[in-house]
């Protein structure tokens, strides 16, 4: 047997390689740099790595390749846009993650044990979170550019495993955090199994694992359609789990609530971009010619996801759970973009992912600021009167909520308009109507929070808003400015996205 040397297109892989190298150096730093200097060194390293990766992605923006890394990676306009989005969101969230208040001092210690107290009093920090973040980012960068099922699965695990760990690192309410991590892991493993099962059937259908091969089999139409249907169904389950679509959403409220808020922010925003990026690629290229088989089902899922997320969010009493259900509803809106299956739908989805991701990070950053003596307060009742005590924080949070609700002059409105018009254009009218209705329902619970903050007098055990550290402040301000700018003058970004949003296949 002859061994062929794999040909790798390093330029295209470079962003991922840079991030992975940064992560490995980060692990080394954990081993060799003294405890006191680790946080700052790690922060600079992580930030630097992400920035270099961002620059590198931007430099290769006009490159397209179907066969980088022996045909298992594809790079095109959407890939560039999605990687940019993931990196920008990661950079903004890193500032939040760097705020040391969020993480436990010693993840290995039992909650409430003496070791933990010692570690806390010494001012320990889990700086492992930085390399973990970078590993996750690397997985996310790979996920939307994978072009065979094996690479896709590896990327999925690569982005998930660090997140499972990070979810368990909360400083306060550690048991809840660990429970969240375990739940996330178990359900994630479960969905991976579904994913693999689907991948196996797709292999059975086409005899190939590469996207191009599966696509050709679908176009040719010679295979056994039963295998194809089972394959699409189970692969979709795996992907829908990652984006938190109903009925595969059960993990997300618990994980959002239990995980350290900084991690929740990163996870909610960046994972969604990666997962939807992969979904868009798969449905727009691989399964495009089998639209008859998945479009009706996905429409139903979109409708129930939007309506369920909006309705259940009304009943939430915890701000993080509320945001979790709101993110479920938004997953539904995004699936609408997948169903659209046209160029407008692709551009709209990417715009929506960017706008929503940024606003999400900003909103969670605000959540980390509202605290009492025992740490973050996510109980909504205790947010009452926040507008009186700290008008700026409350106003900015209200603005993010209005953006989620899709009120004009926020990025959310432009996103919603473009995604709905794309879906309408492709004939998915019922989905659009359900989307509009659920926006009306969703407005109710966003506004309820605004009422609480501004129009309700505070209780005695009122929370205080800590003065944000410089790091958190950067996160909040950057996401706020982007959300406003995209609401008032989105034309440049839309044009930019339109220029690149064409899948090659």
């Amino acid at each position: 047997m002859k061994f062929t040397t794999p040909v790798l297109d390093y330029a295209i892989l470079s962003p991922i390689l840079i991030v992975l190298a940064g992560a490995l150096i980060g692990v080394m730093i954990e081993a060799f740099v003294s405890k006191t200097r680790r946080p700052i060194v790690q922060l600079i390293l992580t930030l630097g790595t992400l920035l270099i990766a961002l620059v590198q992605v931007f430099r290769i923006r006009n490159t397209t390749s179907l066969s980088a890394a022996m045909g298992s990676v594809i790079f095109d306009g959407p890939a560039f846009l999605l990687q940019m989005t993931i990196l920008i969101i990661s950079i903004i969230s890193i500032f939040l993650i760097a705020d040391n208040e969020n993480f436990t001092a010693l993840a290995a210690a039992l909650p409430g044990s003496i070791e933990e107290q010692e570690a806390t009093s010494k001012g320990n920090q889990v700086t492992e979170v930085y390399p973990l973040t970078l590993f996750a980012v690397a997985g996310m960068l790979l996920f939307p550019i994978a072009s065979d099922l094996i690479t896709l699965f590896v990327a999925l695990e690569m982005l998930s495993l660090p997140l499972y760990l990070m979810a368990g690192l909360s400083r306060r309410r550690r048991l809840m955090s660990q429970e969240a991590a375990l739940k996330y892991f178990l359900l994630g493993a479960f969905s991976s199994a579904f994913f693999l099962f689907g991948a196996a059937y797709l292999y059975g259908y086409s005899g190939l694992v590469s996207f191009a091969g599966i696509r050709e089999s679908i176009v040719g139409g010679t295979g056994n359609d039963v295998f194809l249907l089972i394959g699409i169904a189970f692969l979709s389950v795996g992907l829908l789990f990652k984006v938190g679509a109903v009925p595969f959403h059960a993990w997300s409220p618990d994980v959002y609530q239990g995980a350290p808020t900084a991690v929740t922010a990163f996870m909610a925003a960046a994972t969604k971009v990666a997962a939807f990026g992969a979904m868009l690629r798969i449905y727009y290229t691989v399964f495009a010619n089998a639209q008859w088989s998945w479009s009706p089902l996905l429409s139903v899922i979109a409708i129930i996801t939007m309506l369920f997320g909006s309705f259940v969010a009304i009943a939430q009493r915890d701000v993080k759970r509320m945001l979790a259900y709101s993110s479920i509803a938004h997953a539904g809106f995004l699936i609408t973009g997948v169903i659209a299956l046209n160029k407008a739908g692709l551009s709209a989805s990417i715009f929506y992912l960017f706008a929503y991701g940024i606003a999400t990070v900003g909103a969670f950053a605000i959540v980390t600021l509202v605290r009492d003596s025992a740490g973050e307060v996510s109980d909504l009742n205790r947010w009452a009167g926040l507008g009186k005590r700290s008008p700026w924080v409350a106003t900015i949070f209200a603005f993010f909520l209005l953006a989620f609700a899709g009120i004009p002059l926020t990025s959310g409105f432009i996103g919603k308009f473009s995604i709905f018009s794309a879906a309408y254009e492709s004939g998915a009218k019922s989905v659009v109507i359900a989307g509009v209705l659920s926006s009306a329902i969703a407005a109710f619970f966003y506004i309820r929070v605004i009422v609480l903050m501004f129009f309700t007098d505070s209780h005695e055990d009122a929370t205080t808003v800590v003065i944000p550290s410089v790091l958190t402040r950067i996160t909040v301000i950057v996401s706020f400015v982007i959300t406003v700018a995209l609401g008032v003058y989105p034309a440049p970004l839309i044009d930019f996205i339109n220029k690149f949003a064409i899948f090659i296949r």
Partner: protein
Amino acid sequence: MTLSLTLLMALPLLGAAVLSALPKTNALRAKQVALGTTLVSAAVTIGIAVQFQRDNIDLQFVESHQWIPSFGINYAVGLDGISLLLILMTAVLAPIVVLAGWNESQSGRWSTKTFYILILVLEMMAIGVLAATDVFLFYVFFEAMLVPVYFLIGGYGTGKRSAAAVKFLLYSLFGGLLMLASIIALYVLSGEQGGHTFDTQALSHLHMSSMTQNLLFLGFFIAFAIKAPLWPFHTWLPDAADAATPGTSVLLLGVLDKVGTFGMIRYCLTLFPNATKTFTPTIIVLAVISIIYGAFLAIGQKDIKRLIAFTSISHFGFITLGIFAMTSQGHSGATLYMFNHGFSTAALFLVAGWMSSRRGSSTIADFGGLQRVTPVMAWCFFFAGMSSLALPGLSSFVSEFLVLVGTFTRYPVAAVIATFGIVLAALYILIPVQRALHGPTTPGNENLSDLTLREKIAIAPVVAIILFLGFYPSPLLKVINPAATHVISQLGFSDPAPTQLGGK
């Protein structure tokens, strides 16, 4: 400097920016800045009105810039007679509201400064929504406008203010989202028929099946009917008017609700002419129900603010009736009615606001004998009431008469029933006038103070406008008539020829 709509919209925004830079403690300075800004805006608007060519039916003061080119969205504004009149009303009412409600921000949750920032932002958006000729831009203002009103009601109102604010917002958002669905459909249709656009003119030439047209019409119409408010979509209004400060109520009922009726003319009629014809009978019925229902409920009210709110529901019924009568008199009457209703409601709300802030109650039974204690205030209320019941010689008479005449030629039954609304109007105005102003002085009212100089200055222009237009409405009608005739003829209607009974 040439006058332009952009300048007019920039002025309040500039004022708001100046306000936000002021220190929170200096409430007086905030009021002065707000008053100055609104006065300058009013002056600019009057300047625009003077330059407006009355006989020209094309849009004037047109500006158009690309906003989001890939969706075909433009920042496009322009004026016809109808929008000019409503913008004029808005800009004139704004300084009156600021002056009349000099102290009404004190009971608020936040500073005076924030109150006036919200008022100015609202003024800017109200002008924008009336001036927009791009449907998308219209929608942006239409929805964004809700946010300042919401905070004005919830933050500075009285009683169950936050509940009222939420009710207002949710009703309006719901309507707005239905409209958004229709706008998306229009956008997609325009894309299929030669390029994405939101230009009102271009959209009016779209080809649609009658089913599509009916559905899209309903999306727009329900949004406007909630805004206007038309029975049965009115239930948010009494609560909002009850909770809001008098000044906010004036802007809410006088200006913002007009966007509903304005939208019916500008969008429902011009974009969906066939659907308009289909739905006209239904809408006429709803309008008549609004007139009678609003009047009956007004008679039954014990609270003066709620009473005014219900009278407005009746008046909006008249406006809608005039619009959908599809005659040029009806249209002119409806447009003039919008303008006049702005001022007569302003008079009622402002005087009622002064009365209740002095008395500490807005229940009608708590007043009594005000004629003796506070003669000027009592006369102002009486005058405002007369204007509301459309006494001949006051401005609202002209418009109500035109609406009824215009309706009668096409829908005589509706016109006859609507005329009963006038009789009921006499009841709902005269009963509170009698209870509050006449009769023995109710204990607790003996020491109420009469209007201050500031309040007199604020109400004087309103009284003057109502009187002047009552005797001499033709300057406004000359602006309105060409636009109204244009709309009617575009729809393919012509005024029914007057028939002579027992003709020879």
